[in-house]
């Protein structure tokens, strides 16, 4: 019975791992070798990768993705902490109202705001700019709620002592309190960064110019637009390059990724 359980778990684990191993090995195989199901590349070559870089500016897209994800994550942390702190530790009129606005925002299906938000970008002249990729994501309701929860759990003495020392509210938030809620900061960082790194729909809508495209968009257009010339290896190589950075980070922070995603699921 126990053996059977291990066998089934192992089989399941393989069905999740093997496709990725195959993908990497196929990307390093010659076009004729891709059909095989072996673990190692057949007819080892890096020509698929050189071809991708010849046909699309994927290096540029990588830097765009990195820039957008880093800047946005930074802003989500700063702004989320400010709002979360005010909701958790300060008393003011309208506080409950703001809390309800956040809940409302979280339950609102994005299908309703998609087209009007695109029109806003057009009217602001932000189409084909980084602003369109960054600004609509700098405030995140889930991040605010997670910060609110974390700040609420800290002792009041910490804040009182800082006030006696003459600290302003911003210094209290970022210098005194934030170091005490590192796990929350990590969770929000992971969720935001991962979400932005993988986002494909919004960039497809607001970016037409190749030099501003992020990786998921460029790989998508490469894959459906016929520029891969129906060459499997080239298509797969592009997908590997999109997946690799996040997979590498995942290998180091596996536990944090799982915990962060679980906490976001449980929130809904």
């Amino acid at each position: 019975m126990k053996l059977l359980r291990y066998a089934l778990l192992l089989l399941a684990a393989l069905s999740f791992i093997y496709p990725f191993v195959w993908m990497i090995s196929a990307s390093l195989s010659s076009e004729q070798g891709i059909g095989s199901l072996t673990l190692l590349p057949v007819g080892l070559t890096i020509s698929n990768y050189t071809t991708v870089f010849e046909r699309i500016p994927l290096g540029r897209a990588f830097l765009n993705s990195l820039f957008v994800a880093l800047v946005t994550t930074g802003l989500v942390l700063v702004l989320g902490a400010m709002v979360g702190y005010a909701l958790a530790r300060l008393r003011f009129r309208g506080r409950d109202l703001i809390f309800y606005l956040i809940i409302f925002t979280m339950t609102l299906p994005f299908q309703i705001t998609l087209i009007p938000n695109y029109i806003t970008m057009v009217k602001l002249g932000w189409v084909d700019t980084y602003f369109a990729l960054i600004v609509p994501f700098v405030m995140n309701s889930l991040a605010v709620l997670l910060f609110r929860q974390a700040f609420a759990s800290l002792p009041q003495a910490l804040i009182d002592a800082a006030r006696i020392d003459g600290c302003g509210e911003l210094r209290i938030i970022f210098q005194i309190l934030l170091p005490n809620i590192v796990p929350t900061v990590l969770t929000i960082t992971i969720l935001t960064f991962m979400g932005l790194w993988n986002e494909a729909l919004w960039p497809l809508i607001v970016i037409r110019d190749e030099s501003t495209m992020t990786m998921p968009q460029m790989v998508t257009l490469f894959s459906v637009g016929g520029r891969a010339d129906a060459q499997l290896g080239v298509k797969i190589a592009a997908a590997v390059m999109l997946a690799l950075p996040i997979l590498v980070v995942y290998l180091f922070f596996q536990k944090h990724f799982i915990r962060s995603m679980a906490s976001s699921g449980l929130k809904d």
Partner: protein
Amino acid sequence: MKKQIPYWLVSPYLLYFAVFVAFPVAFSVVLTFHSWNIISPMKFVGLDNYQRLFSDRLFWQAIYNTLRFLLVHIPLQIVVALALAEFLNQKIRGQAFFRGAFFLPVIVSGVVVTILWQQLLGFNAGILNRGLTALSLPRVAWLEEPGIAMYAIALMATWKNVGLYVILFLVGLQTVPVQYYEAADMEGATAWQKFRYITLPMINPTIFMVVVLSTIGGFSLFIEPYIMTEGGPLNSTLSAVMYIYKQAFQYYHMGYSATLGFFFALLILGVVAIQKRYVEQEN
């Protein structure tokens, strides 16, 4: 402490809410009564967009496709995730390894997963069909057959998301008090009885959550069919968001596209509310 400070701190949220939530919701209602291609001035058309929506064959096709997706995706997701979570919720070596493996597709972009599965589902060289051939079963035209393609995408979506639900079910399973099982053991209950009468009722909230998240996911489906089949064959994988996207950015029907978005959003909220109601009655 100065009185304005809290308002300074929350002002970014209020600004964001005004620009990216309140305005678009209000504006989308306005758009549903207009015909507009962004360039020429907006034209008031009354209820035309709504009328058109109800007689739009593709709109109903998108809803029908989403329902077919959910019909396979939800049960499969619950059964597989629950089974794997049950297996993991024992004294098992390599817990971290198994969780880590199940979670791999969750963190990767849907773009990657779709390109990968396009190969796995290939008619001639795909792994699934090779497996079928090895078992001397006939090959399946996973992505070429209108009656099958959406189910193939549902299968892929399950593979992508199930790791997350394994973790959520594990959290749920660990809240069940051990004493319940011990008491059941003393009464001589079978493993199935324990599962049916103790585990299942206790993890009902988690099941509900999976149903709600999958429903929202089904209505949000976009990049997977966009890459995999471009909505085909014969619009059998055209999704709600894909149809909104098409109307807006292929035909520049902003008013009609906003009407679709508005309607799909109401539909999602309605379905989730019904699901919630049902669960509350059950308990």
